């Protein structure tokens, strides 16, 4: 089955979440069709606030055609997309006419894949599956996600996604609660990473180094990935800059120190992770 056919096969199930949403682990159950809104505030329209072909991602992905969707289930205090991520009313409607034209344009720019990004794409799964299932020549699909989705949502991506780019942000539940506002973060993300690794898709675990969080976040994440998913590509991002409300959080109001990226790569190499560029 092609990616497009898999998208179509999961469409009816995905649409059921429009009336009782359990796409992310907030499991709010709201009826979006009736006007209900959960923590992500998303309705039944997905909106693209930016799309472009980018060349700064992991080497195996570039050039990649990124579709940025507004709306997110997390509230990371340092979010680089800021209100574009948190306000799902921003951007143009994700509809087939636009999507098909954009995909064709991306190909002319040399894009090797399309990549769904946010915000968080999972909260818009029904609309994304709709446009992909109606796309006549769908390129390989990358899914850049916070991995705070439910097992149901992840299952509906099976066969659709070629590459998962999983943002594993926090190494413990205390940091997660303080910095992105959710409970039980670590268990949820780890469960989903294991499940994704069993799908027929490439899995990249990405970690954005946060200043002062090397010991509490980076190291536990690196050691867990080495122990449980040693075969996956581990991507260390050292481009942290304070955005959104990071200036109000102790320790996060400064850029990452220059030495931190190299130190993290050295540790990751020592413990045997497959660090990718």
């Amino acid at each position, binding site marked *: 089955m092609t990616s497009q056919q898999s998208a179509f096969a999961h469409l009816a199930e995905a649409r059921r979440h429009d009336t009782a949403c359990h796409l992310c682990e907030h499991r709010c159950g709201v009826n979006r069709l009736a006007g209900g809104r959960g923590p992500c505030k998303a309705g039944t329209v997905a909106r693209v606030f930016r799309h472009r072909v980018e060349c700064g991602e992991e080497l195996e992905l570039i050039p990649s055609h990124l579709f940025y969707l507004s709306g997110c289930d997390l509230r990371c205090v340092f979010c680089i997309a800021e209100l574009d991520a948190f306000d799902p009313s921003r951007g143009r409607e994700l509809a087939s006419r636009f999507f098909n*034209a954009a995909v064709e344009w991306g190909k002319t720019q040399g894009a090797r894949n399309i990549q769904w990004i946010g915000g968080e794409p999972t909260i818009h799964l029904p609309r994304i599956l709709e446009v992909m299932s109606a796309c006549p020549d769908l390129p390989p699909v990358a899914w850049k996600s916070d991995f705070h989705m439910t097992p149901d949502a992840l299952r509906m991506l099976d066969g659709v996604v070629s590459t998962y780019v999983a943002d594993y942000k926090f190494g413990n539940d205390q940091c997660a609660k303080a910095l992105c506002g959710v409970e039980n973060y670590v268990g949820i993300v780890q469960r989903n990473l294991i499940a994704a690794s069993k799908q027929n898709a490439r899995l990249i675990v990405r970690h954005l180094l946060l200043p002062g969080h090397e010991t509490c976040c980076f190291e536990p994440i690196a050691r867990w990935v080495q122990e449980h998913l040693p075969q996956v590509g581990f991507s260390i991002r050292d481009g942290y800059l304070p955005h959104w409300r990071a200036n109000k959080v102790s320790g996060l109001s400064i850029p990452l120190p220059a030495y931190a990226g190299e130190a993290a790569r050295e540790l990751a190499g020592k413990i045997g992770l497959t660090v990718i*560029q």
Partner: protein
Amino acid sequence: MSDDSILQEETNVTDLTITVDGRVYIAGTSRPVIELLADLQPGNPRLAALLNHLRRTELDTKSQASRNMND
């Protein structure tokens, strides 16, 4: 709104931040920006890796297209 205006609106936007210690941060990296920065910072291994990879990918694509035309 025409297809052109739908498609082109935000495709050439790259955000650059230069911190006081001279580090350059890029969000939404386009090919021209990588070329430019590689010229300005020739010893940067990340930029070199990105550029080499993109050039290799382009060569592969051209070579594949050429093979397809000859088939």
